[in-house]
């Protein structure tokens, strides 16, 4: 194959899935000339699975992406068919937004944004190899021999690396949804010395809405108040489509049990490790045999299609069994299957081979982001894409790298977990992975991250100004409530009684009154009006801050303690072999991960407090015993 020069850029992004789109946008936005090379331009930001974004932890990630100047939030705000706030009955730390996407509109909108973005070139191409010289990436070569050169390369090839689709006893080489797999590139990455593992994920069948008897299901409408992920969104979609809820039946379970021997999961054909938080229906029924039924959510895939996603029925059983499974569910007796469910196995890169910037340790200026790093989920992919894009651009522009820490963002938790601990199965963000989830809220994503987005040129002046104003207003209102005393007037006593609290005996600071669990800021406002008119968003943050101050403070102290350890840097060229006191297993893991700080070291599995103590002594000693050459 004759090769030819096809252009030189600051940054090449391979793949335009959720990670690639975000990476390309960020790099270009920051001022790096960027090309995104992707297999099929009609498949940009394609959702091969659930047409849905957000939910606990993930929804907060979408907010964080927006606060950092990424695009996911803006795209979904324009293209959803339904939005709901979840966990409203619980505390503020775990509230999260979820949207059902119009799958096709989502792709179109993302493509449009990338097309409009200055500095960004979109090109359909299949990348087969990288150009690596002296341990540094210099560019890529495509299937047809086009050479693209660049200072940085970001690989975001998702589940395509040596992808294999499995349905029943059928197994064939394929990317998701019968797209082409990336085999040459997968081989090439191995040649370059990147270690990979085999993971597996799956998707349920899709059915035709016209053939569903909705009368046998329960309706699940969206919220009827305006909602958005992006802080910049001003237009809200109020015309929403509902989802529907139904259940498996004893018959479903019988069919599965009868046909278990046909399942590639149990026949041993599937070897990749699947996610335990996303079990297939066969898995659920085997592992939770005592449950008489499981929920099935019917989710429309868009406004201009009748295709419906059957959430809860993820399976890789043969197609003829899938037909019977569907028919066993109330409302789906006559449902027509449009696509069968399937499992897919693929190579993913072991993420401990990455620095926290997502640059590979092995090959300089090469980044990987998204499902290729062992995660699963659109939001996780987009978040990594954004961070890789920002860091690649920083690299090119000579700016400081951007690494979020665990107390700053779910994105920080995600990246730190990946590069420090690695993952033994497809990784999904959960709120319980975040030790500071009280600080990582849906409502304050902007407070946490806008500044960083702005510093890196991802946030417009206009937006930044309104952010600064909002912040000042929140501070002022909090101060105000702390100062103002509420006297035991009839009016306030009535409000308190209404809320079920005990009456005031003497004047009390408004803030202290608000701390009472039963008191609401909106009610207090009638007695203690805000200094100036405030939005609901501002009110929310004021209320949360005051109400949960004690808890927030505790969390901050914890963060403080961690930061001290985070600030203790480990020299890059440290020679762990020269440190006699560290236990063997700890040594091996430290050498593999090459933690940058003491805090990171302490999170590595197999590294004990005594190892950390010894490490500390060595580092503080100043002359790292023997530095490897």
């Amino acid at each position, binding site marked *: 194959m004759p090769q030819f020069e096809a252009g030189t850029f600051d940054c090449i992004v391979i793949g335009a899935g959720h990670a690639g789109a975000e990476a390309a946008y960020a790099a270009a936005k920051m001022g790096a000339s960027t090309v995104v090379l992707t297999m099929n331009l009609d498949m940009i930001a394609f959702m091969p699975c659930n047409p849905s974004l957000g939910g*606990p932890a993930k929804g907060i990630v979408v907010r964080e992406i927006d606060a950092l100047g990424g695009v996911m939030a803006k795209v979904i705000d324009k293209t959803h068919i339904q939005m709901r706030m979840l966990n409203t009955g619980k505390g503020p730390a*775990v509230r999260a937004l979820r949207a059902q996407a119009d799958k096709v509109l989502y792709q179109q909108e993302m493509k449009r944004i990338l097309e409009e973005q200055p500095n960004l070139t979109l090109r359909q191409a299949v990348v087969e190899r990288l150009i690596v010289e002296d341990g540094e990436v210099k560019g890529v070569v495509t299937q047809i021999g086009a050479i693209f050169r660049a200072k940085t390369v970001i690989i975001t090839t998702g589940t395509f690396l040596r992808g294999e689709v499995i349905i029943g006893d059928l197994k064939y080489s394929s990317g998701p949804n019968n797209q082409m797999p990336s085999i040459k590139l997968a081989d090439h990455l191995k040649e370059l010395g990147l270690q990979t593992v085999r993971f597996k994920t799956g998707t349920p069948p899709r059915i035709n809405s016209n053939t569903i008897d909705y009368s046998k299901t329960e309706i699940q409408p969206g919220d009827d108040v305006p909602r958005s992920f992006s802080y910049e969104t001003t237009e809200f979609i109020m015309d929403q489509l509902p989802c529907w809820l139904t259940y498996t039946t004893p018959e479903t379970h019988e069919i599965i049990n009868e046909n278990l021997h046909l399942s590639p999961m149990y026949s041993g054909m599937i070897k990749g490790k699947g996610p335990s938080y996303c079990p297939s229906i066969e898995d659920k029924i085997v592992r939770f045999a005592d449950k008489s*039924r499981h929920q099935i959510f019917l989710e429309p895939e868009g406004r201009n299609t009748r295709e419906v996603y059957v959430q809860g029925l993820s399976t890789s059983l043969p197609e003829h069994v899938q037909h019977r499974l569907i028919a066993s569910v109330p409302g789906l007796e006559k449902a027509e299957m449009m696509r069968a469910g399937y499992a897919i196995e693929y190579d993913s890169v072991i993420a401990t081979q990455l620095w926290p910037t997502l640059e590979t340790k092995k090959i300089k200026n090469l980044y990987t982001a998204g499902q290729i790093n062992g995660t699963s989920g659109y939001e996780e992919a987009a978040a990594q894409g954004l961070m890789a894009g920002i860091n690649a651009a920083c690299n090119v522009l000579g700016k400081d790298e951007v690494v979020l820490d665990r107390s700053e963002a779910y994105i920080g938790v995600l990246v730190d977990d990946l590069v420090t601990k690695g993952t033994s199965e497809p990784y999904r963000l959960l709120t319980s992975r975040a030790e500071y989830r009280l600080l990582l809220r849906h409502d304050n994503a902007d407070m946490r991250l806008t500044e960083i987005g702005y510093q890196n040129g991802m946030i417009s002046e206009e937006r930044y100004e309104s952010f600064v104003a909002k912040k000042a207003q929140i501070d002022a209102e909090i101060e105000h409530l702390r100062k103002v005393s509420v006297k035991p007037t009839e009016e306030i006593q009535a409000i308190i009684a209404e809320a079920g609290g005990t009456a005031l005996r003497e004047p009390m600071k408004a803030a202290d009154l608000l701390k009472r669990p039963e008191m609401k800021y909106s009610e207090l406002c009638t007695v203690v009006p805000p200094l100036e008119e405030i939005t609901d968003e501002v009110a929310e943050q004021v209320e949360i801050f005051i109400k949960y101050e004690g808890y927030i403070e505790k969390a901050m102290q914890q963060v403080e303690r961690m930061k001290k350890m985070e600030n203790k840097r480990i020299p890059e060229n440290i020679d762990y072999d020269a440190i006699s006191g560290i236990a063997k297993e700890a040594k091996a893991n430290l050498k593999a991960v090459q933690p940058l700080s003491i805090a990171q070291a302490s999170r590595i599995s197999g590294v004990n407090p005594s190892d950390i103590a*010894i490490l500390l002594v060595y580092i503080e000693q100043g002359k790292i015993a023997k530095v490897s050459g």
Partner: protein
Amino acid sequence: MHFDTIAAISTPMGEGAIAIVRISGEYAWEIADRIFQSPAAKPLCEQPSHTIHYGHLHDPATAEVVEEVMVSIMKGPKTFTREDIVEINCHGGITSVNRVLELVLTEGARLAEPGEFTKRAFLNGRIDLSQAEAVMDLIRAKTDKAMSVALNQMEGKLSHLIGDLRTALLETLAQVEVNIDYPEYDDVEEVTIPLMVEKGEWVRDEIDQLLRTSSQGKILREGLSTVIVGRPNVGKSSLLNSLVQENKAIVTDIAGTTRDIIEEYVNVRGVPLRLVDTAGIRETEDIVERIGVERSRQVLKEADLILLMVNSSEPLTDEDERLFEAVAGMDMLVIVNKTDLPAKIDLEHVYEMAGKDRVITTSILQEQGIAELEEAIASLFFEGSLESGDLSYVSNARHIALLKQARHTIEDAVQAAKAGVPIDMIQIDVTRTWEILGEIIGDTVQDSLLNELFSKFCLGK
């Protein structure tokens, strides 16, 4: 450099009439002030550095006076660690020094790791760089020992109880997490506030119970448990009496006189011992005696030090050999008694079984060899061979402090639940309680929660 405030007993245990509890770190003075009261009622923080003060320690929780003490206060950097230091000089008894340490830990200091004062002195540039290697060795050696002690204690009842508490908390937590992370799943029961209160109160009450029963931990109060074993009539009770110098156990020449356990507390050259005389271990028909024998076996298992006694005037019997087997691997001394009578024992064989330096010959009757025995016990202890007893003493103080912290956090959770605080806030304190209890038995965090989550609940598409 900036570290948290640490505390530890800084005099060897059991030695001397005075013990010192040392506190080092930013809050050292503040902590001392919270528990110390001088007759002048002037806070320590207002006193000049490097001065000594007389007064009393009291427990802020109960206002009870704990100890009469002398307190030295020193401002950094002119101190051993270059940090602010307080040294509380108290009575050397184990009970009192432990109370003091416990109080300091409850007030917010963290129990120092072995060698940590030295480490800080080094890190803060107080000690010479050339000592680095020595410090490392120290840390390494001490942590290894501490680990093995922690493991030993894990076998015990305490760790079982704590394990149960943690399981209960983990189940609740997992359920809360599922409610949060998978709100749309209706098949996981929503953890309600009343349920949270109920679980929390149960855990709190259990901790209270634990604190009551183990409040001064066996070894803390009582010293090394030292068990005298041997066939009937070899002279066990006589040894105990001679060590205690008073006739407590009945000395007779009828085999099997001692039918139950007899305990005495003695201080042998600075080493606190809880001496236990057992009934001669052998198979027996006599019910009363059998109970005694069974208890003897039990006591053996829990001993820190075994004194195995044999009779010099008789050849070794099968029973003797079985005893040697039963205590194999434990810290022990062999006492060959009745040397005033003609020797019939094969002493070489005894040396072979126990190691020559572990064998002491005595004639209790003629008060021979007792000094040698005392010497041997003391040197075993101070050489560190018996350090397990020493360390478990410290870690017990640590357990108590941690249990108190756990009690505090779970109580916070219960109160918050009652006050109607949202569940995910309450969860913060519940998780903290679970973590603290985990610290006691050396268990780690996050992953087990996730495992619990996915093994117990059916989640996902």
